[in-house]
Every structure is written in structure tokens, then in C-alpha cells.
């Protein structure tokens, strides 16, 4: 313990010397030296500030130790107790008593005899602000959030919400879901901050489904979103983020993870009052949402194509319907669709794993999921292209052996030209990758093909994202063949190592 103060004081000597050197000369060298040392100096100043603040505060508070509650002090002294012995218990009992008063207030909201006047509740919430990170206060904070009387206006002190929100996001206080829901419903900025906090964490780390899942679960958003108002706000925020980033894969991934966690939380909810699906997805028809909600793992693999057909038909009907019906248009139903990313992945896989002619419905679905805004002519063209590539790839499968160049040709590049990087859209790339993972003879050349496919960082990024997502999905569905899984895992490690 003493070493820390020694450390700080030797640092102090060091910095005093440094500062006086900087002060005396102003050559290029000293300017460079200053720039180099600035961050460390800042850190040192911060440490000094913390140390002084703590000591100053402590001395100040300790000197106030004289102001004890006289009767309690005398009594406990007579029992042989010191303040250190009874203050924790006293605080606990005070909090307990206030919490039960607040609960009573909540239950007998219309009883004018209650002792907890709105002014007192307000004063209490104000008092909590500097003490919010004291663990003993957690029950009080929870009670203030969840127990409300019958006043139409907000009774709690505004800074109270800010303080709780910040402490909660920084994990300095832990609150049950019911309290968090109340916080976010009563104070919208707190919910906004929670979402921003999540985005910040997502941006600052590499796209990794496991990590995304951890961040999303940590945020308490899935559980809170069981309340439709919160779900709608979160969903709209995601939608805007998607629009602003032109459909960034990271946002898509987050939406999918969030939706999955949300559905899990919804299932666990034992509330009598269960909201209809359309409260959460008002922009999509209930039959579409019900179809999308089905998790592939709940349906036998042999019947997946049926579900795909069904979903595709419903989407197509909405998209091609000029009158737009009573629900949203193409962009709305696409947005609903991408919540449940599993089906697009299943579609891509199914196309490659069946020998038969690719069903048009599945082709349409895949084309739609990658380019929702295409006109019908453009989409038809894409479907033709995909069909052609599929045909060539399946032919390769039937041949005794094939090389990376063969694959390149199958993707649509002419053979005669000099070897150059493979140019194709993300949809074709996805098909190629699926092919590499599933085709028995492809393991040997997989790395080579990928090298051909990925000349830019964006594409490498896209491929690592795809591999990560595939592994994540396989682990949840338990459908991976061991060899495929091993290959995907190796490729992913290789690519990540390159970046």
C-alpha cells in the first residue's frame, strides 16, 4: 500500500523536472518531447487529481463523524459497539423502511393518507444522485423507479434518471429488468443512451457473432424489449442505423442477434398479459411474421424447402402487389425478413446441397434478400445469373476433380483470360463460399479460391463475417458436418491472421 504513494511521489519528481525542462527551452526537440509525453502526463495529472480528491473528501467526511445521532451513539456505546459496527445495519434499515413506504404508496395510490408525499419522493430521488453507486441504495433506487403514485407528471428528479442510467451502463449498479424497463419508459434519453452505448461497443470491436451476442445480452435490451413500446423504439433505431449505413453487415448481424435474444426472453416471460405479434411488428402481416418466427431448428431438415417456399411466396406477393395492401411495402417486409437471418442462410445452403433444379421461389428469395430494391426485370436477371452459376458448380461436383481455375470459370469468368482476381457480387461470392464448404473435393483448393476472391480488405472482411456467421449458426443448429466446420474454422483463422 505504501508503495503506491512512493510511486506517485517519484512520478511527481520526474514530471517536475520534465516540466521545468520544457519551460526553459523551446527547441524543436523539446516540442517533440512534449508531444510524446503529453498522454502520460495527462494520466499522471489525473491520478494526482483522484488522489487529492479522495483524501480531501475523506478528511472532510471524517471530520463530520462528530455529528452522530446522539441517542443511537450513546446506546450502542453502552452495548460495546463502535460506529463501524452499527452504521451498515442502520443504513440497511433506513433503506428498508423507505422502500416499504414507497411500495405502500404504490399499492394504495389513491389513499390520501399516505406518508409518502410527492415532494418527499422527489427529495429522496434527489438525495440518491450522489450516492447511487452505494450498493445499500440499490433497493431504494429500484423502488423509486418501479413504485409510482397516481400523479400524472413525473415526480422524480431529472438528474436522478441520468445518474441511474449512467451507473447502470457502466455496470456500477445492478437493477432487475422491471426497474430497467421503468427507467427506460419514464425517461427516453436513458434508452437512447443504452442503445448508443451498445453501438459504441459494437463499433469498437471486430464483427464476431459471439461478441455481439455477449454485448446484446449484457445490455438488458432483449428482456426490456418484451415491452412493446421499448421494442418499437429499439427496432426503429436499428432501422435508421441500417438506412444510414446502407445496410452494413454489422448492423444486420446485430439485428439478428437481438431478435433471437428477444424471442428467448419473450418465451421466458410468464406474464399473463402477452402482446400480439403485430404489436411488435406492426409493419408486417401477422402470417408473414409467424412464418419467419419459426426457427429452422424447430422444423425437420427435410421440410425446410417448404417453409422457404411459403415465406418466398408471401414476400413476393407483398413486393409485387402494387397497391401495397394494409401493411408496409417492399422495404418494410424486407426489414421484417432480415430480423430472422437464418432463412436467407438456409436458402443459400439448400440451393447448393440439392441436385435438383433450383426452385424459383428460393432463387427469388435469395435475390430479394441481397437487393430488395431491384425492379422485377433486374431481379429476374439476377436469378438467371445465379441459376447459371449453380448449374456450373453442380457440374463441377459431378466431375472427378477440379481446380481453383475451374471454380473461377464456374463463377462466370472466361477461361482464356489471364488469371486475375475474381469479380462477382456478394451473392455469387456467398454461393461460392457455400460450395467450398460443402463440396467434398473443394477443401484442398478452398484457400486458393478465397485468395482469388478477396483482393480488397472489404471483401476479406465480408468473407470473415460470413464464415463467423456460418459457424455461429451451425453451432446453434447443430447441423454442421464436422469436416465443413473444421474447414470453415481454419479459413476464418487464416483470414483473421492476415488482417
Amino acid at each position: 500500500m505504501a508503495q503506491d504513494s512512493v510511486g506517485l511521489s517519484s512520478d511527481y519528481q520526474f514530471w517536475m523536472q520534465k516540466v521545468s525542462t520544457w519551460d526553459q527551452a523551446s527547441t524543436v526537440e523539446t516540442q517533440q518531447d512534449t508531444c510524446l509525453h503529453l498522454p502520460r502526463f495527462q494520466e499522471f495529472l489525473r491520478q494526482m487529481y483522484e488522489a487529492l480528491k479522495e483524501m480531501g473528501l475523506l478528511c472532510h467526511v471524517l471530520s463530520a463523524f462528530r455529528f452522530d445521532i446522539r441517542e443511537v451513539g450513546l446506546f450502542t456505546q453502552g452495548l460495546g459497539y463502535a460506529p463501524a459496527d452499527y452504521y451498515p445495519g442502520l443504513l440497511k434499515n433506513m433503506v428498508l423502511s423507505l422502500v416499504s413506504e414507497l411500495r405502500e404508496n404504490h399499492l394504495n395510490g389513491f389513499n390520501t393518507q399516505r406518508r409518502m408525499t410527492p415532494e418527499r419522493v422527489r427529495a429522496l430521488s434527489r438525495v440518491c444522485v450522489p450516492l447511487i453507486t452505494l450498493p445499500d441504495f440499490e433497493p431504494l433506487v429500484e423502488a423509486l423507479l418501479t413504485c409510482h403514485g397516481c400523479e400524472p407528471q413525473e415526480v422524480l428528479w431529472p438528474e436522478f434518471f441520468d445518474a441511474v442510467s449512467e451507473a447502470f451502463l457502466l455496470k456500477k449498479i445492478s437493477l432487475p429488468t422491471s426497474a430497467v424497463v421503468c427507467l427506460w419508459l419514464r425517461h427516453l434519453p436513458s434508452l437512447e443512451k443504452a442503445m448508443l452505448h451498445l453501438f459504441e461497443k459494437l463499433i469498437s470491436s471486430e464483427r464476431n457473432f459471439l461478441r455481439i451476442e455477449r454485448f446484446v445480452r449484457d445490455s438488458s435490451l432483449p428482456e426490456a424489449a418484451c415491452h412493446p413500446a421499448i421494442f418499437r423504439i429499439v427496432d426503429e433505431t436499428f432501422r435508421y442505423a441500417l438506412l444510414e449505413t446502407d445496410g452494413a453487415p454489422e448492423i444486420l448481424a446485430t439485428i439478428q442477434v437481438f431478435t433471437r435474444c428477444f424471442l428467448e426472453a419473450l418465451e421466458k416471460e410468464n406474464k399473463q398479459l402477452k402482446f400480439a405479434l403485430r404489436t411488435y411488428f406492426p409493419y408486417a402481416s401477422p402470417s408473414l411474421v409467424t412464418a419467419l418466427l419459426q426457427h429452422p431448428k424447430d422444423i425437420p431438415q427435410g421440410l425446410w424447402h417448404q417453409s422457404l417456399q411459403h415465406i418466398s411466396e408471401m414476400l413476393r406477393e407483398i413486393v409485387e402487389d402494387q397497391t401495397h395492401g394494409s401493411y408496409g411495402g417492399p422495404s418494410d417486409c424486407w426489414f421484417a425478413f432480415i430480423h430472422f437471418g437464418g432463412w436467407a442462410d438456409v436458402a443459400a445452403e439448400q440451393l447448393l446441397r440439392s441436385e435438383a433444379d433450383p426452385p424459383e421461389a428460393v432463387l427469388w428469395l435469395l435475390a430479394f434478400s441481397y437487393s430488395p430494391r431491384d425492379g422485377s426485370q433486374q431481379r429476374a436477371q439476377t436469378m438467371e445469373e445465379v441459376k447459371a452459376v449453380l448449374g456450373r458448380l453442380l457440374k463441377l461436383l459431378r466431375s472427378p476433380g477440379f481446380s481453383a481455375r475451374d471454380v473461377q470459370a464456374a463463377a462466370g469468368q472466361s477461361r482464356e483470360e489471364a488469371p486475375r482476381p475474381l469479380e462477382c457480387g456478394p451473392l455469387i461470392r456467398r454461393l461460392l463460399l457455400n460450395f467450398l464448404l460443402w463440396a467434398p473435393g473443394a477443401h484442398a483448393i478452398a484457400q486458393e479460391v478465397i485468395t482469388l476472391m478477396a483482393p480488397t480488405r472489404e471483401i476479406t472482411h465480408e468473407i470473415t463475417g460470413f464464415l463467423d456467421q456460418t459457424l455461429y449458426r451451425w453451432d446453434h443448429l447443430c447441423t454442421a458436418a464436422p469436416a465443413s466446420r473444421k474447414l470453415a474454422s481454419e479459413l476464418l483463422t487464416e483470414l483473421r491472421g492476415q488482417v
Partner: protein
Amino acid sequence: MESLLQQLARFSEVLAVSRTPHVSTWDPATVRRALQWARYLRHVHRRFGRHARIRTALERRLQSQWRQDSGSGPAPDPGLTNFQALGRCDLVLALRLLQNRALREAVWHALLQQVFPGPGVPGADEETLQGRLAHLARRRAAVHVLRLHGYQESPVVQEDALLKTQAELLLGRLRERAGAQAEGPGGLLSGLWERGPQDNFLKVLAAALLLPPPSPRPQEEETGPGTPNTPGEGHHELLRWLLGKADILAAFCRRLPAGVVAGVAGRHPELSRVYLGLLADWGRHLHYDLQRGVWVGAESQAVPWEELYGRFQSLCQAPPPLKDEVRTALESWKAQDGDFEVPGLSIWTDLLLALGTGT
């Protein structure tokens, strides 16, 4: 073992001295040694916490030591009073020294450096002396802040936080004593009464007697004095002592509000009998003033009619069997007096008339 006990005794002396002006003779080395010693004893607490035999032996020695010290003098020195206290002895020592003006300035600075070395490893803060002092300071500040803004005294004594805490501590001590097979709580309780303030003591007694009955709970090693205790046999000890002290009992029944005494009487039948006896006695000391048409007392400290009525009213509002016992008693006293129905002849008649037929 013997050496450990000796060290305990000597550290207790150091702890006692730390509050006195004698510390003006201390130098930084003394402070350092004292704190080290406290750390060592804290380590003993951790080490032997689960060692029933050693723990009991230490507990006994500490309790007997404290009883010896507290027997004489106006205020006992709350030093090491039980095994639990060993876990906090460095905190207690540090606080005493920090508040002791008699320390020389150089020694005071050395103390500050020892106790507040500054920011260390984050996360380890909780366990360091500095961290625990900071935590205590925060909690103390919290209590005072709550008292000023938001906390209100509760009329229900066993729910009022201050009274409830004191009651829990009292019962905890009594239970400890019972566990250590020491002699009865008489000395402790009488000491508290004599030292006062008496009104507070009476309220705490009531709160202690009204705390909910114990729920079966596995014995926990680390229940500190500050955590809510189950009343246990403390109730019996307390009641027995109170019933044996006629003057304190009278004060209890007289000075506490009617509702509170009624509550305690409802929970403890032995007390209800004594209470009724007192009420009868107080009632008989009143006589009827014909001119004013009221019952008055001869001396100034006689219980006035209003109060008597109020107390009986509370008792009649208590749940059965107390309510019925009170009615029965009133009826029988009225009968003894001559069973008059006319007011002004027997106070019991008048009381029954005032109380009405109410069930």
C-alpha cells in the same frame, strides 16, 4: 493460545489508549506498529473464524474482559467486545486515531500516509483499510443525508429504522451472551438504563419485544452486529429482566404511548397482567370531583383520566385474547366497586361507559 490471549489483552489496552490524550507521546513508529498489530488480529479473525473451539475461547475471554472494564466507570470503552470485533479492529483503531487531536502533527501526517496511501489497484480497494474507511464514510454520509431529506420516524416502533437497529443490536448482544453462557443480561441492561437517555432505552426495549418472532435459520458464521438478527431467546431474557424491575417496568408502562404498550402486552401475556395491575392502581388513585364532574388525581404525577382512558382504549382495540381479558378485568373491578351504572361513583363504570359496547 495463551500468547494469543495476551496479545488480545495488550491490544485492547492500546485501543483504549488511542482515544486518550496519552497518544501525544506516540511517534510514527508506534502508530505503524499499532496498525500492524490490528492487521495481525484481523488475520487471526479470518484464520480462526471457522475454528469453533478457538473462536469460542477467544470470544469468552473478550467478553469477560469487556464486562470487567464496563463494570466500573461512567461509560465503557467499546473496544474488543467479541470475536466479530477482531474483524474490524483496524478500522476502529484508525478512526480513533484520526479523531484524536492529541496526536502530534508529524505523527498525524505519518498516520495519514499509512491509512490513505492513495489510489492503488482498482478492485482491491474493497478490502484495504482505505477502501473500508471510504465505504464506511459513504454509508455514514448516506445515513445523515437520508435523515435530513426523506427519512421520517415511524410511529410503529419496531419499524422505525433507528429503534429497530438498536433493538437488533441489543438482541444480538443478549444472544451472544447466552451463547457464551455468561451470567444474565442484568448488568448490561441496568447499565444502559442508568446511563440513559431513558426514553430512548424504553422505546428500544419495546421495539425489541415487538420484533417478529425468529424464523429457523442456519447459524451463520459472519453475522456482524450490524446485520439484522433473529430475536431468538433474547426476548425471554429481556422480558424476565424487565418484569424483575418494578420501577423500570412502571416507567415502561407509563412513558411509552398507549398503542405501543398495548402491542407489547398483546405479544407477551406476562406483561399484560402486570400492566393491568398498574392500570388498576393508577385508576384507584383518582377521585371524582363533583363540582367539575371529572375524575382527578390528588398528586401532580397521578395519571390523568384522559391518559387512563386512552390506554384502556388501545387495549380494547388489541386483538383477542387481550381485548377480552381487559374487558373482563374492567367488569370485575366495576363489580367489586358495587356494580354501579351511574357515572361518578366508580371509575371503572365510567371507563366502561366511555369505552362503549364496542367489540
